[in-house]
C-alpha cells in the first residue's frame, strides 16, 4: 500500500510540476508516463514473483506489453491529432482574419480610387481630398484615424501622407502575426496587420505582420 501511495504522489508531482513549468497538457502527460511506466513494471514483477510458472510469466508479459504498446499508440495518435486540430484552428482563424483584412481595405479604397479617377475637368482634387469627401472624418496630415471596427475583430485605420497618398491599414484584434515585437498602428504589439497604399497610379497591398 505504501509503495502505491508513494508512486501516486510521484506521478502527481511530476504531472503538476511539468504542467506549471511548460503549460502544456501533453508535456505533463508524457513526463508523468515515466513514473507510471516504472510503477507498472514494479507491479508486474511483484504480481508474477510467486505462484507463476515461467511460461505463464512470459505469456503475461506479452499481454501486458501488447496493452502498453496499444495504449502508447493511442496516446501518440491523440497527441498528433489534437495538436493538429489545435494548430488548424489557429491557422483557420488567421486565414479568416487575413481575408477579412484584405477585403476591408479594398472595400474602402476602391470607391475612393473610382471617385478620384471620375473627376471631370476642371475638378482636380487630390487623393486625400477625395478620401475626405467620402469619409468625412478629420484627415489631418500624418494623423491616423479609426475608420471602422468590423465584427470579425478587425479594425480599419486610415492615414494621409503628402496629400497624394492615403494609407489604409487593417489590424486584427485576435490573430497574431509572424513578428511578436511588431508595433501595430493601434499601439499594440505582434498582431496581424496589413496596409493598402492608395495613390493616383493604383493600389499596393502589403502584409506588414
Amino acid at each position: 500500500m505504501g509503495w502505491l501511495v508513494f508512486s501516486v504522489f510521484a506521478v502527481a508531482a511530476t504531472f503538476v510540476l511539468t504542467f506549471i513549468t511548460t503549460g502544456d497538457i501533453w508535456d505533463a502527460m508524457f513526463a508523468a508516463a515515466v513514473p507510471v511506466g516504472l510503477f507498472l513494471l514494479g507491479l508486474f514483477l511483484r504480481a508474477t514473483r510467486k505462484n507463476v510458472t515461467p511460461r505463464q510469466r512470459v505469456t503475461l508479459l506479452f499481454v501486458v506489453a501488447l496493452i502498453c504498446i496499444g495504449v502508447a499508440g493511442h496516446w501518440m495518435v491523440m497527441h498528433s491529432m489534437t495538436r493538429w486540430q489545435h494548430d488548424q484552428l489557429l491557422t483557420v482563424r488567421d486565414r479568416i482574419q487575413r481575408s477579412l483584412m484584405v477585403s476591408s481595405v479594398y472595400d474602402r479604397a476602391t470607391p475612393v480610387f473610382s471617385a478620384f479617377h471620375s473627376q471631370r475637368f476642371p475638378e482636380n482634387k487630390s487623393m486625400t481630398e477625395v478620401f475626405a469627401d467620402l469619409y468625412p472624418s478629420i484627415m489631418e496630415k500624418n494623423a491616423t484615424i479609426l475608420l471602422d471596427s468590423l465584427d470579425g475583430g478587425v479594425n480599419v485605420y486610415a492615414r494621409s501622407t503628402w496629400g497624394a497618398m492615403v494609407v489604409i491599414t487593417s489590424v486584427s484584434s485576435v490573430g497574431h502575426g509572424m513578428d511578436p515585437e511588431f508595433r501595430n498602428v493601434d499601439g499594440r504589439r505582434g498582431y496581424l496587420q496589413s496596409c493598402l497604399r492608395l495613390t493616383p497610379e493604383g493600389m499596393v497591398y502589403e502584409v506588414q505582420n
Partner: protein
Amino acid sequence: MKFRIDLQRAVKDPLHGIWIACYIGAAMIALGAVQESFVHVAGWGDPAIPIAHAVLPAQPAVLAGGIEVAEGILQFSGHTARGVWSGYVTTTLMAMLISYMVGPALLVWGIRARARHRQQIAVRGGVPAIAAALALGGSTLAAVVPAPLYALVSHRTYTMLERDHRHSEALDDLSVELYVMARNAQVEYHRSGEPRGGGHTWLTPVHGRKGPLRMCDLLGPGRGPQCTESAHVTIGRQMFSLRIERADSLTLHGLVVCEPPGCPAPADTSGQDTLSMVVGVTPLNVNMIFEE
C-alpha cells in the same frame, strides 16, 4: 446436466467468473453515471468546451486531447487559455492515476486475493473487498484495452481530415489570388478613364494607351511573362482565365488541381480532380462563387 450443476455452483459462489463479469459491467455503468453527473454538476455543459463528452471513456489521452482542442477553440476567439490549470487538468490527472495505477493495483490484488480465497486461505477484507477490487480494477482495464482500436479509427479520420484540409487551403489560396486579380482589374478600369472624365472601360483601347485587359494587368509584378491576349494563364497548380463581358463587367475563372486527388468536385475534361471558382467583377464590386 453438467451445465445445470455448474450454474448452481456459480450462483452460490460470489467470486465465480460470471459474477465478476457482472461486477465489472455494473462498475462500468456506475462509473459512467458518476462521470456524467460530475460533468453536469461541475457545469461543463459550456458548448465552447467539447470536453464534457470526452470524459465518459475515462481515458487520460482523450481528456488531454479534449483540453488541447478546447484551448484551440478559446484561442480561436481571442482568449488566452494555454497553460491555465483547471478542473479539466485535475480530471486528466485523476484519470491517469486511476486508469494506470489504482486500477491495475486493485486488479492484481483482487486476482491474488481471489486465488487465496478459493484455496480457503483467510483474506483481509473478505469477499466484498475482493469483488469491489476486481470490479473497479477490471472496469478500468476494460476502458484501457479498447483504446488502440479507437486510435486506429481516429488515425483514419485524421488522415482524411488532413487531406480535406489541404484541399480547403488550396481553395483558399485560389480565392485570395482571384480576389487580388479582381481588385487589380478594378484599378485598371478606373485608370482607363479619359483626362476630362468618363470613358472608363475594360473593352476597347483608350487613346491607344492600352488594349483590352490582359492577364498581365491582373497578375501584378513579378509573376512571369504572362502578357498574352488569350487571357489564360497557368501558375503552378492554379489556372486562371479572363472573359470581358461588357465595358464594365468581366468574369474571372480560377481552377486548382486537387493534390492529393479526391476532392469533392467532379473531374474536369482532362480527368483531373479540380476545384474552381468564378468571380464576377464590376467597377466597384467583386462577387465570388465556388463552383460545385
